[in-house]
């Protein structure tokens, strides 16, 4: 036992019970020992962290980085996503001092992870290896070595996906053949991600591969393949779907009558129809099958089948199950990116998802019409929430007009609309807002903030 330990034991038990040491003596000796122990601490041997790899991307401009720091500290935090997008577009990385906060953000918010793969740079990857909470970063592409075949053989999963996307963009046939070589040995979760790359430059040559993928063990792979095949009008799946659909919708002179499917057989399930109701959906299973069958039938089939345009078809009265039929077509229009159908369906029911299928100018025009025609309420704001930034042209003008119009009569709704507009309007409009009441100062302030944010990257 050391002198110190002896002193502690004496103090614990009480010096009266011990060897008769005086309490003051114990205190004095302890003071000497305690200070000596503090003064005598010596360094130890520890393993320095491995050195992080060299960065390949340039740093974000200092002013931009400072703004990000402020946003991470809470100022206009909702705009962080926009900053990250811009930074990725400019091919820069964030300063190391901000990487931990960003990686923490990514741990909470999946939507920013893809950006972080690039922005956090080599330092971010190095940190992600040290801290398990940040390991998600390895699933994201770093944006590096994209034409280097070694990445495909040995890279992290995020980089392999990015490599395949790049190859697909350059040569769909090469990408498909490369994928086919090791397909059976890829982990299921990777197969689902890989097959999604076929959406880019999808063509008839992809049909056999995708048709085969309908027999995959993993449901995500099967469903992705089925969705892609509906976009190929000549595919075997499209023909099978058209055959099924033909019996479901029948034109009865001036209206459509609906025949619900009687069963969902294994062939239908193979083609991507889900037999079971999804969680949260009520009602019968047959109407669910109906909607899915319509959603997976090439839209061109209907125009040929009925001899009418998309507009004419969507205006036909439907005897029963109108809602399921319209939902089916809507899903099909979005899946098949069919502008004609999207336009016709939007007239029937203005869903913002359909707007996304239209060319940008038309999108803005149509949304503007709605903004002018409808009441400013939660529904309108939710609808507008589906339209991606930047809003400009007719939509921007209409929104600003409406905000000013209802500012006095409906302050709350005007405020909500102003908040949304502040995040979506083209920031170049920041000095063309005209006079707004003080209560709506969020609009000029946020827009000016976003304008500065954009400027700092140039």
């Amino acid at each position: 036992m050391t002198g110190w330990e002896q002193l502690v034991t004496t103090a614990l038990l009480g010096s009266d019970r011990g060897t008769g040491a005086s309490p003051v003596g114990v205190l004095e000796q302890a003071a000497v020992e305690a200070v000596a122990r503090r003064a005598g601490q010596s360094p130890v041997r520890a393993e320095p962290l491995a050195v992080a790899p060299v960065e390949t991307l340039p740093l974000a401009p200092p002013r931009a980085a400072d703004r990000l720091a402020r946003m991470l500290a809470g100022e206009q935090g909702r705009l962080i996503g926009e900053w990250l997008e811009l930074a990725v577009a400019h091919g820069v990385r964030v300063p190391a001092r901000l990487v931990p906060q960003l990686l923490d953000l990514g741990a909470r918010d999946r939507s920013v992870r893809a950006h972080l793969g690039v922005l956090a740079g080599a330092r971010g990857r190095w940190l992600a290896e040290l801290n398990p909470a940040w390991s998600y970063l390895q699933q994201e592409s770093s944006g590096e070595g994209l034409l280097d075949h070694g990445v495909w053989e040995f890279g992290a999963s995020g980089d392999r996906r990015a490599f395949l996307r790049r190859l697909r963009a350059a040569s769909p046939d090469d990408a498909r053949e490369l994928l086919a070589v090791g397909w059976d040995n890829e982990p299921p979760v990777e197969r689902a991600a890989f097959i999604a790359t076929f959406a880019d430059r999808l063509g008839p040559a992809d049909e056999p591969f995708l048709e085969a993928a309908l027999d995959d063990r993993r449901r995500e792979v099967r469903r992705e393949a089925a969705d892609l095949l509906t976009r190929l009008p000549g595919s075997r799946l499209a023909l099978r779907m058209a055959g099924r659909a033909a019996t479901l919708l029948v034109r009865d002179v001036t209206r459509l009558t609906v025949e619900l499917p009687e069963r969902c057989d294994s062939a239908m399930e193979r083609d991507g129809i889900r037999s079971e109701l999804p969680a949260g959906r009520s009602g019968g299973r047959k109407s669910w099958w109906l909607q899915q069958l319509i959603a997976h039938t090439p839209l061109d089939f209907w125009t040929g089948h009925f001899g009418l345009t998309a507009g004419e078809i969507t205006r036909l009265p439907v005897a029963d199950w109108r809602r399921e039929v319209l939902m089916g077509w809507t899903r099909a229009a979005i899946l098949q990116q069919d502008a004609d159908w999207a336009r016709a369906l939007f007239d029937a029911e203005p869903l913002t998802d359909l707007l996304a299928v239209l060319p940008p100018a038309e999108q803005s025009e149509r949304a503007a019409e709605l903004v002018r025609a409808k009441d400013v309420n939660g529904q309108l704001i939710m609808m507008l929430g589906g339209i991606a930034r930047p809003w400009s042209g007719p939509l921007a003008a209409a929104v600003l007009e409406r905000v000013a119009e209802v500012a006095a009569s409906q302050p709350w709704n005007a405020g909500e609309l102003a908040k949304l507009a502040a995040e979506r309007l083209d920031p170049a409009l920041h000095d063309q807002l005209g006079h707004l009441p003080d209560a709506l100062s969020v609009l000029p302030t946020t827009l000016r903030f976003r304008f500065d944010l954009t400027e700092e990257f140039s």
Partner: protein
Amino acid sequence: MLALAPDASSQKAAAGVSAPAKWSGAGVARDALWGECKGSGSKPYRACVDLREPAYRCSCPSRKFPCKHALGLLLLWSADGVPAADEPADWVEEWLADRRERAAKQEAKVAEKVAAIVAAEAASASDRSGASDGSGGSGGYGASGGSGGDDRRARQREERVDAGLADLERWLSDQIAHGIAGARQTALADWDDLSKRLIDAQAPGVAALLTGLSRVFRHEDWPARLLTEYALVHLLAVAHRRSADLPRDLRDTVRSRVGFTTPKEYVLAQPPVRDHWQVIACRDEDRDRLLSRRVWLHGRATGRIALILSFAPVGQPLDSSLVLGTTIDASLCFYPGSAPLRALVAARHSAAPSGGPPSHGVGEADRHSSPASGEAPPRGERAADRHSAAASGEAPFHGVRAADGHSSPASGEVQPGGERAADRYSPPASGGVPPRGERAADRHSAGGVPPHGVRAVDVPRLIADVLARDPWTDSWPLILSDVVPARVDSGWYLADHDPHDPKLENALPLLPGTLWQLAAVSGGHPVTVAAEWTPDGLRLLTTWDERGQVVVL
């Protein structure tokens, strides 16, 4: 710029009023920045900023300081949104003149008191050299220069403190005699009671030591920790009882730790240390509804570290005249003691060139520095004086003068381990004065230069020296140069960077906590780190990234 804001909501609000459309009649001339901001009322708010300090004034009713208008104006200015003018507006000029006048008065008042103390010191020194120390156990400054009533009050306090500490000595001795095994059950109430009695006995420093004791129970080895604390408190009580026999510096240390406040004038009567002081770290604490701010300064030439403490009640602004990352050319006076650390800014000569973060103001002031700016009044301690340590229940300062007595700043007084830093001293100009006309952020990117510090392997010797002079030291600021983060199992360390032998025994443990920021900035490369030594490991304060920008850890 936003580092100047008192809180996050002020930052937000400031961003809201930084749009050019909000401002009219804004301008910048000499060291003043001003503008009129449209508010909710009919009259616009007039805000102006004295960029030398920075100091603020605004006609708005906000109790926050600086208010959002002043901050918004600064933001606008940093975005190059304020035109230069030849002369400040009349109302600005009025304010500036007013400030100058008040500063001059204040300075004259303090100078008078300082002169009185210096004279008294000189007199008592000559007394002492002639005869034995006549002033007895009472501190050198407590009894000097006061009227009869002050003397009586001072004597009364001495008696109360003596009685309180004698009581404490007996209690401690009883604890050891009967054993501390039952402390977990009984001690909390005892400490509470004792600390109340010590407050009544006007020994707030010791009272605070007792209130803080309960943290020992967070550790498994609490008996050893408690014995350490008891022993050190006992040592303090005994040292105070025998303070007449102690060297002057050590006596100052003991008195400050017991809880005697050192008058500002007494501190300012100490020899000033002029240097380019870099603000290397800043930490705010909120304890018992009292905010405290610690600002650490590092002198480029002397290698010394100084701690500037300020206090404010919750809701009131803390002193914001020292901005992290900037460097000031100033004279500091250290609180006397055997290991001096706490200091006052006695005079700011002019803003020194530095590229630290929100340095626009500093740079600007530098360009237009007028002779008057050298006469800034001592600042930063107003709040501290009003809310002395007694209110905070905390020892007012930890600093005590070096046992080897005064050495004048001219002789290059350095800290242990600071010799090296003094050798490496490079003139401020090499700190990278950014070319004129650069925008704030560009200058910002030019960054500051990390201060020169010591090697990890030298730290034990340095700490041993500090402890030898002030055994009650429980934290001491350090700057470590060329260190890398290291790990042993789950514990983090800082080790000297040695590419030839990375496995040397030179790693210092860090307090547990979030250390990823340091790892991120370093990336395994050597960095400069400012930290506080504590008996349980280093508490990280700041580091500098590859651009020289200071990063709070």
